[in-house]
C-alpha cells in the first residue's frame, strides 16, 4: 500500500462505517449483568480491521460510533468514540499476520493470535482510554466508569472472540479457495 489509499480501502471505510452504524441497534442482552449488552457490531469492526488494516479499522470505529450515537441516540459520547478507534487500529495493525483474504485465517495459531490482539486492544480501549476520558470530560466517579469499562471490555472480548472469529474463519475459507480448475479424475 502506498501513501494514497487504494480505492478498495476508501470504499471499505465508507460501506464499513455504514454497516457498523446500522448495527448500532442490534444488541444481545447479557442477562446476568443488568444494562449491558453484547454488541455484534464490534465483531464486524474487528473483522473489517483484520481484513483491511488499521486505517480502515480506525476510521470505521471513530466515524461509525459517532454516527451511530448521533443518528440513534441524539448525542455523541466522545469518551466512548475514541476507544472504538483504538480497537480498530489495534486489531488492524496486525492485518498482514492474519492473512484473512489469502485464506490464512484457519490455523489455530492465527486464531489464538487474533484473539490475544483483540483482548489487548479492547483492554487498552475500555479499561484505560474510555474511563480516563469519562473522568476528564464528565468528572464521573472513578469506580463507576471503571466498572462500566470492565463490563464493556468483557462484552466486547466475548462477542469478538466468538462471532468475530467465526466470521473471519468463514470468510477466509471462502476467499482463500483456489479458483483454478482441477483436473478431473
Amino acid at each position, binding site marked *: 500500500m502506498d501513501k494514497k489509499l487504494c480505492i478498495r480501502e476508501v470504499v471499505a471505510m465508507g460501506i464499513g462505517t455504514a454497516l457498523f452504524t446500522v448495527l448500532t441497534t442490534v444488541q444481545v442482552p447479557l442477562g446476568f449483568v443488568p444494562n449491558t449488552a453484547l454488541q455484534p457490531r464490534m*465483531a464486524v469492526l474487528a473483522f473489517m480491521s483484520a481484513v483491511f488494516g488499521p486505517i480502515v479499522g480506525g476510521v470505521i470505529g471513530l466515524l461509525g460510533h459517532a454516527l451511530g450515537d448521533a443518528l440513534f441516540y441524539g448525542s455523541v459520547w466522545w469518551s466512548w468514540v475514541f476507544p472504538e478507534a483504538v480497537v480498530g487500529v489495534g486489531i488492524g495493525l496486525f492485518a498482514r499476520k492474519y492473512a484473512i483474504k489469502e485464506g490464512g485465517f484457519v490455523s489455530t495459531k492465527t486464531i489464538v493470535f487474533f484473539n490475544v490482539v483483540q483482548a489487548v486492544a479492547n483492554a487498552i480501549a475500555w479499561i484505560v482510554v474510555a474511563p480516563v476520558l469519562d473522568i476528564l470530560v464528565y468528572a464521573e466517579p472513578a469506580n463507576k466508569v471503571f466498572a462500566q469499562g470492565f463490563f464493556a471490555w468483557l462484552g466486547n472480548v466475548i462477542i469478538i472472540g466468538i*462471532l468475530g472469529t467465526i466470521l473471519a474463519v468463514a470468510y477466509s475459507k471462502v476467499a482463500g479457495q483456489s479458483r483454478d480448475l482441477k483436473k478431473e479424475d
Partner: protein
Amino acid sequence: MTRMISYEARDTWIHRLTGFTKLMFFIIWCIVSALTFDTRVLVTMVAISAVIFAMSRTEWKQISAVFKLLMLFMTLNLFFIFVFAPYQGCEIYGTRTDILHLFGDVYLTKEQLFYEFNVLLKYLNIAPAIFVFLVTTDPSEFAASLNKAGVPYTFAYSFAIALRYIPDVQDDFTRIRNAQEARGIEMSSKASLPARIKNVAAIIFPLLFSTMDRIDVVSNAMELRGFGKKNKRTWYSYRRPGKSDAAVMIFAVLFAVAALVLTYYDGSRFLF
C-alpha cells in the same frame, strides 16, 4: 426502523450554511461543552442550542423518538452515578449539605444534586446541536465542503459513501432479519445466551458477506471511472461559503474563548 434522524431539505439560513461551517461549529461546541463545568456557561449553551434548534425549523416528530431514548439514557446514567458515588459532588465542591436522609448512611446532598444537574446540562447542550447538524446538512454537499476545506478527497468521499449507503445497508438488514425471523429465529431474551449469539450470527453472516460483495462492486465501478487518478476533483453539490458562514465561525470562536476564560479564570473548572 424509522426512528433514525435524517437530512430533510428546507430553506433556512442554517440549511444554506456550508457543511464544513456546521461541522466546525459542532466540534467547537463539543470541545467547550467537554471542558467546562461552569453552570453559567452550560445554561447559556443550552439556551443558544434551543434557539438554533428553533431557527432550523426542525419538526418535533423528526427527532422525538430519538430524544426520548436520549432522555432514558441520561436518567439511567444519572441514577448510576448516584448509586456508585453518592458523594461525588461533595468531593468536587469541597462542602457537604445534607437535604434528605435516604437509608443507612446514604444522604442526598445539595452538592450531589448540583453536580448531577451540571452533568445533565452537559448532555443537553450537545443534543440540539446534533439534531440540527444532521437534519440540515446535505451529505453530498458536506463531503464537497470537507474536501474544499483541505480534507483529502478520498476521505471526504468515503464519508459520503458512508452516508449514502446507510439506508441501503439498513434495507438489507431489515430484509435479512425478517427472513430469518420468518424461519423461526428468536431474537429476544427468551433464548439462552449462546443461542442468542448464534441467532444474531444468522443475520450478521449474510449481511457482512453481502457487504463485502458490495465493497467489491462499488470499488470496481469507481476504478473503471478512474477514481483517485488525479489529485483534485470537482464536486457537483459544492456551495461557496458566504457571509453567514464567516459570521457563524467568528461567533463560535469568540464564544469558545469567552466561555473558557469564564470557566478557568478562577483556577478551577467547577467553581465560580
